[in-house]
């Protein structure tokens, strides 16, 4: 399975800003916490991380040289 953005459930306050910016419709609010429902849809644009006011969403990158 493709690596997904990471969500810290304790930091998520359910504000839904990430839902508004997610063009892939990969995010869903469940019990006032964001969950990534459909991994195939997420294209890792990192907009959800950019807009999150609490730092609950993280989109980490590996940094490599082209072989």
């Amino acid at each position: 399975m493709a690596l997904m953005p990471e969500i810290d459930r304790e930091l998520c306050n359910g504000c839904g800003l990430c839902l508004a910016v997610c063009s892939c419709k990969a995010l869903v609010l469940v019990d006032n916490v964001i969950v990534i429902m459909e991994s195939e849809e997420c294209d890792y644009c990192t907009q959800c991380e950019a807009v999150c006011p609490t730092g609950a969403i993280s989109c980490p990158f590996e940094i490599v040289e082209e072989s």
Partner: protein
Amino acid sequence: MSVDTDFLRSVAHFSGLGLAELRSIAKFVFEKSAQRDELIVEEAEPGEALYFVVSGAVKELKTSVEGKEQILRIIRRGESFNDVPALDGGPSLASAQAMGPVHLYGISRTDMGIILQEHPTVALNVTRVLGERVRYFVSLVEDLSFKPVIGRVAKLLLDYAEDGRGPRPRLTQRDMAAMIGTAREMVGRSLKTLEDAGTIRMERHRIVIQDKEALREAA
């Protein structure tokens, strides 16, 4: 608990010591584990111990009163943090936070004093470690003061990719921003500029350096 003397041997502080010496130092070592985001050391608190990362990664950071973070270093296996407070008895200079599950070895300030007295080689090694640390921070200050953001991003990417010291934690754009003293948005723009120039390629969860020479010129 059995302290791994092979690990101690690999740590710069204990370089050049024989097995007997490592075993005598091992008696002072305690183990500690931390989970992701757990604060191991808090800035300004009394510096009670020196820590070595056995597994995982720790970020050393300063936080402003407004909550803005500056990551000073990312500490990986075999490296140490909280050295200065453990040596001079002053408060911790920065906080240290686990980037994921970490396993640490620690030596208390008191015991470190005993070790330094009983093993002069360790004292010499510590001066070298601190000397390298000073060089690192002078370079960081230089970058923060004089380099444009895109140059700092380029240097960060180069340093990370060229670092042959073993597995490295993945970085978010927020982490990168905190490491180079800028806003997350500026990191994003710089990455876009570098990608548009063909210097890097942004893949799903990977930043691939395509043109290292161009990245060096940008750094």
